[in-house]
């Protein structure tokens, strides 16, 4: 999959109008100047030649230097990840935890006032575009209330944490909705299962029933979907980072695209793809740990 992604990107950039030469030479550059740069970065080679060359360097784990910043792309990537990863993980984990709590709560009060309120809010949260949420939050909490900085990623440590509050919140609102929904339907489904009734018919305490029979079983679909949500969150990253002026992976990607910075685009895309693969793997592992059926099935096959 990573190969497919990387090759698709390569051809895409190859075919795109404009090139790194322009970005580097500036708008007043003459044809000769640009030609010189094209030579330097081998931009005029055949697509396949370029790609093979690229692959060869990948093999020795050399992702190359960015055309634009001259840094090894890994350095830029690591810097951007320093913003994005905490942001995503915070948003994701808060949303998952909150969504799970809300989902369980409304499922247990199916049809009740809490349930209806939560369901409605969730629909609104889920269908409000992320950028709209971001703008509203900026306006309310950043400008009107002045509680949090609305821009930039801060100077590290606590300051960065403060700067990440609003972007994380924006992501949380959207994700929370999805998490709540998934949890709610998962819990409802489990609640309808016989083994829950059976446990209750034996006088198992409600707390234990909720935990052992309901939540643990509902956790399987929730975990399965949690990975997907984290991945879906990546789509909103560009928007959030742009609205809040964060120097994360999303910004890195868009600016690399803008400059046709091939090594950087490749590195970012591959990182995202690798992250997706990793997330899916972790989800599989988690489900593997959670669900003995999967575990035993896998053993039997292996």
């Amino acid at each position, binding site marked *: 999959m990573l190969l497919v992604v990387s090759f698709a990107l390569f051809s895409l950039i190859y075919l795109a*109008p*404009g090139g790194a030469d322009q970005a580097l030479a*500036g708008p*007043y550059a*003459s044809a000769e100047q640009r030609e010189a740069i094209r*030579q330097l970065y081998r931009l005029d080679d055949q697509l396949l030649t370029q790609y093979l060359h690229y692959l060869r360097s990948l093999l020795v784990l050399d992702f190359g230097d960015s055309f634009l910043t*001259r840094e090894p792309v890994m350095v830029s990537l690591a810097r951007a990840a320093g913003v994005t990863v905490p942001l995503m993980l915070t948003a994701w984990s808060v949303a998952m935890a909150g969504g799970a709590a809300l989902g369980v709560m409304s499922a247990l009060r199916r049809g009740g006032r809490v349930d209806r309120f939560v369901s409605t809010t969730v629909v609104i949260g889920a269908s409000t575009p992320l950028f709209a949420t971001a703008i509203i939050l900026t306006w309310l909490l*950043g400008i009107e209330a002045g509680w949090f*900085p609305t821009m930039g990623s801060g100077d590290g440590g606590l300051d960065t944490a403060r700067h990440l509050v609003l972007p994380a919140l924006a992501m949380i609102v959207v994700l929370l909705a999805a998490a709540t929904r998934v949890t709610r339907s998962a819990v409802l489904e489990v609640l309808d299962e016989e083994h829950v009734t059976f446990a209750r018919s034996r006088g198992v305490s409600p707390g234990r029933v909720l935990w052992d029979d309901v939540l643990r079983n509902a956790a399987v679909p929730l975990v399965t979907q949690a990975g997907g949500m984290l991945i879906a969150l990546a789509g909103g990253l560009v928007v959030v980072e742009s*609205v809040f002026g964060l120097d994360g992976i999303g910004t890195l990607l868009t600016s690399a695209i803008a400059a046709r910075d091939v090594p950087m685009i490749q590195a970012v895309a591959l990182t995202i793809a690798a992250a997706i693969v990793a997330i899916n793997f972790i989800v599989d592992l988690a489900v593997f740990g959670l669900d003995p059926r999967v575990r035993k099935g896998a053993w039997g096959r292996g």
Partner: protein
Amino acid sequence: ACTGGAGQSADLTVIKMLTPTLSSVLDPRQSSGPASGALLIALEPLLRYKGGELTPLLASAMEVPEPTSYVFTIRTGVTFWDGKPFTAEDAAFSIGLHVGDDSGSVNASLFSLVTAVEVTAKDRVTITLSEPDPQFAAGVAQIGMVSKAFYGEHGDKVGTADVLNLGTGPYKFKSFRPARELVYEPAAGYWGQGDAHFTSLTLSVVTDEAARLNALQSGEYDGMFGVPLPQVDSVAALKSLRLSSSPDLSVYKFNLNVATKPWDDIHLRRAFQLAVNREAIIKGALRGKAVLAPTIVPETTMAELAGEDATAAAFAALGDGIRFDLDTARAELAKSSVPGGLQTEVLVTGSDPTLALVVQTAAQDLSKIGIDLKVREVDDQTYYASVYFGRKTGGVSIDLFSGSTPDASNLPTYIISGGNALTGGGSGTNISDYVNTRVDALLGESRLLGVDDPARGAKLLEALETAQTDVPYVPIAFPEVYMAARQGLDVSTLDTFWWLTMWPETLAGA
């Protein structure tokens, strides 16, 4: 960002400013225009632009024995931040970085006439040009001096966030996030007199307009260079900030490519020009923050060279020729090869939203005579590739062309000289590929004249008038440039060439 204290302006010693653009590498080869403003306070140039004049900085003197030869005397006692002396070798090296097609420098066009850079004495650097260039000294003022040894040591890692760069200025680089944020600290043991005023100085770029505005409002930043026109009113509404404006040496213009059918037809071009309602554009798209452009050079710039009266007369005449007049436009169109009008696409880049607004406004009136403009937004690279480097447009394009030096000849040289037409093998900044021997002759003659010779101005005026009759461009407006800063910081004297100056001093009110 205020360090606290008595709240007086003198206490503002830690400041953060927003700037329109920062380069991705701290290397003079990779920054030009306003982006160089970040470098030139640290990597000082040989000549400093100050109060409209070029004054010696790292060069103690500049001599021009003949129009094609510049001799710089390198100041003694200048040291880099690491304590090593700044030498003629370093100066020659620094200039040499920009010479040649394969230099990879974005400033190469400023030095395209250079044939040799030589150290002719221990403290002397001589630069030889292939032909005279009145703007050359201004070009020299745009590039910072770097250490040859430092470059030798770090190779192509110079200017990255890890390595930074080595200069001689009062502010030294402290940390750098490419294209995003640059933090300076005072350089210990600065060679010149007077220490850095600010104990910490930060330049930041925020691309998202609203985020920028939010940041200004929340007091996270102390000011901003080059407020975009659409935002000026919003910034003005912020109580904490003060705005100043000055004329810009840049021009919004439609380019009508004379080598592309059907725009090779003068009638069509005239019709187009007459149907552009520039006043409406200024009022709406440019928010009234621009001056009507009768030609491609602002009147004030021209007047400095050609004299007030001559300029005023010439500009009045130029202005009369391009009045908004739909009836005449229709008549012209009827005479053209496309009497029924036509439809064409105009590319704009998302990084300057004003372009789209200008085209939309113009399109409204153009459509009344049958010329239908469709706006397409593309990214910078596509835009440059189509508008500047290749002619992949239907013949009409729009751009905001900014002068790179304060000289009155700067814009005409790029825009109307045949040498910069793509068809003539030039850089392509003559977007209309307009070649007129008379114009080229006038521009050539003007170069031979002294920098301050009013005759040079007269020749330039004539070139502009000649070019105007052929309508390769439809000048629209000269935008004003806006600076904003909180009370206690002085932006009132920062003009469009602020980046060539020692701007922190100005800010501090020194």
